[in-house]
């Protein structure tokens, strides 16, 4: 499972639906795999507003990634601009996302955490004990 998915799901057992522990779920004994995926700033720009940032920071930390405490503010990229963007030989999208160096670094990190990392083995639980 990807961290992206982990940011979207809660514990669905009826009894804990109303509990504040049901989201986010915590990884335990997680074994990670990573695979390179073309960098897609358009996707990241669309994803940002849909992420629950504090939860993402928590799950990332559990898996050994550090994200800034506050969600980066990004100008919304348009699909038309993305359509005009060129791609590098690795398939990465080459476009000016209009962000500073610091945010660009965060974006690259986000890409790695959300799109390139998978938990292939492990459990999810409601508490991180």
């Amino acid at each position, binding site marked *: *499972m*990807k961290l*992206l*998915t982990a940011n*979207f*799901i*809660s*514990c*669905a*057992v*009826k*009894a*804990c*639906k*109303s*509990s*504040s*522990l*049901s*989201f*986010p779920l915590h990884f335990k004994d997680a074994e990670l795999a990573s*695979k390179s*995926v*073309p960098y*897609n700033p*358009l*996707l990241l*720009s*669309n*994803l940002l507003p*849909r992420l*629950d940032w*504090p*939860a993402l920071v928590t799950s990332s930390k559990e898996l050994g990634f550090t994200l800034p405490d506050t969600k980066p503010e990004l100008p919304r*990229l348009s*699909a038309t601009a*993305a*359509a005009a963007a060129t791609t590098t030989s690795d*398939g990465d999208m080459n476009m000016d996302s209009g962000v500073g160096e610091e945010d660009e670094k965060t974006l690259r990190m986000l890409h790695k955490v959300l*799109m390139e990392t*998978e*938990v*292939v*083995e*492990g*459990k*999810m639980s409601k508490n991180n004990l």
Partner: protein
Amino acid sequence: MAATADSLAPVSNLPPPMREYLIHFAQVHETFRKPELESLAKLFNIDYEILQYSEKSPFARIALKSNEAAKTLISRSILSKAIYELWGTGTTYDEVHTSVKSRTSHLWHLYKTCSFKFGFESFNGMRTESYKKKLIESFSYVGFDGPIRMKNPDELFVIMEDYEATSMVDLERFAALNIDEKAEAPSRNPTHLDEPHQIYFTRFIGKSSRAIIETYDLKKRNYIGTTSMDAELSLVTANMAHVGPGKLAYDPFVGTGSFAVACAHFGAVTFGSDIDGRMIRGTKSGKSLRSNFEQYKIMDRYGDMFVSDLTNSPLGRFGATAEGGKKRSEQIFDAIICDPPYGVREGLKVLGSRDPSRPKVPTIIDGVAQHTLKDFVPPKRPYSFDKMLNDIMNFASTHLVPNGRLCIWLPTADEDFNEFSVPAHRNLKLESICVQNFNKWSRRLLTYTRYEVDQDQPVVDEEVLPDATEETLDTAKARLARTADALNPFRRKYFEGFKTPPSED
């Protein structure tokens, strides 16, 4: 046909920026063609006006602002073949020539030296090769001097003929004629055939995506099952759902993933889940949903596939509130596409024990992440189709982003179209209904758009389903006492063979 003498004059009187084009559709899934086109125009934000359209004909006339718009509009279409600039039209060749001359004579010099080719398309009719040649030659006044190239010409001009729908007798005549033609029997005069009722002369502008149906053909797909949806309609559904690069799509009844691969093809990162983990894990020999993504080289758009029951989905941010006490947003997906189970082969099921007082089995996140309960198949209890639909509508309302789309395939019995009403939800605007007819039954594809903001007013309509409410233990027990058959009108009808029930007397 009265053609105007304007520059690039449209056949009809269009306001200046609009120009006239001809779309060549495939003569299949007729009720899906216009909605697909309209959906794509909206997706690409293209102004258009349909000037002539009939489900009986593959040829439609449409006004657009530019060749660029025409190219873009058609580029993703599955149910059309190509789009052309319309140079002239008429009911006879004389009319076509007059029309072409008055509309395009000022353009001919542009094509004087390029390489070109003439093509010929007849619908419901047929011409011999020699006669086609004669017809093509009748356009020689355009004065193209460039080389004729059969492969990759700079420009392609096509004559299209539309014949009135023909009777079986005519079709047999055509068939016979075709054989004669091959044998080059001179006795038959093809001009004795009925004449087309409309003729078009066109210049090729852009091709559709129809060719990818072949790429995604189920016969060549690594992992399929009895529930797989054919490539053509899966791709059309993805077009209706406005999926695209940078978007997230989700199929809550993903099965073998027909919609998932179609969404990923068009660039969306795609998620899916199913109550039955075996569907996702696939076979021991490594055929799985994931292997399909590998086969089509779309792994970069593989979100996640997991085991879950839509009626008790883990998708969402339960319990906890975000800072400031606001409910955490659950608007995640740009598109939700599905083909929910209607229990023809197997009664519709949801996870949970038959006795609703017993606690539910925790949802297993599966597929990739291993879980201790991996091979455990949770008990399932029967569920009514209407209630399931209700759950889907509510799920879409909470999980779609503003302007996100829901596409859902539902069955409907043929002689009783109202068997299932069209589900409604106050936050979902119905965009279109497309019907696919089979021999004894039919199904339809419904497309909805999520309103930007929540609507206060429930839809005032008798077809509205009540909002989902938690059942009381007693009513649940009473309901479960009934059989799955009794719960599902479609399933019942299916097994009755759609017979009319015997009358009282």
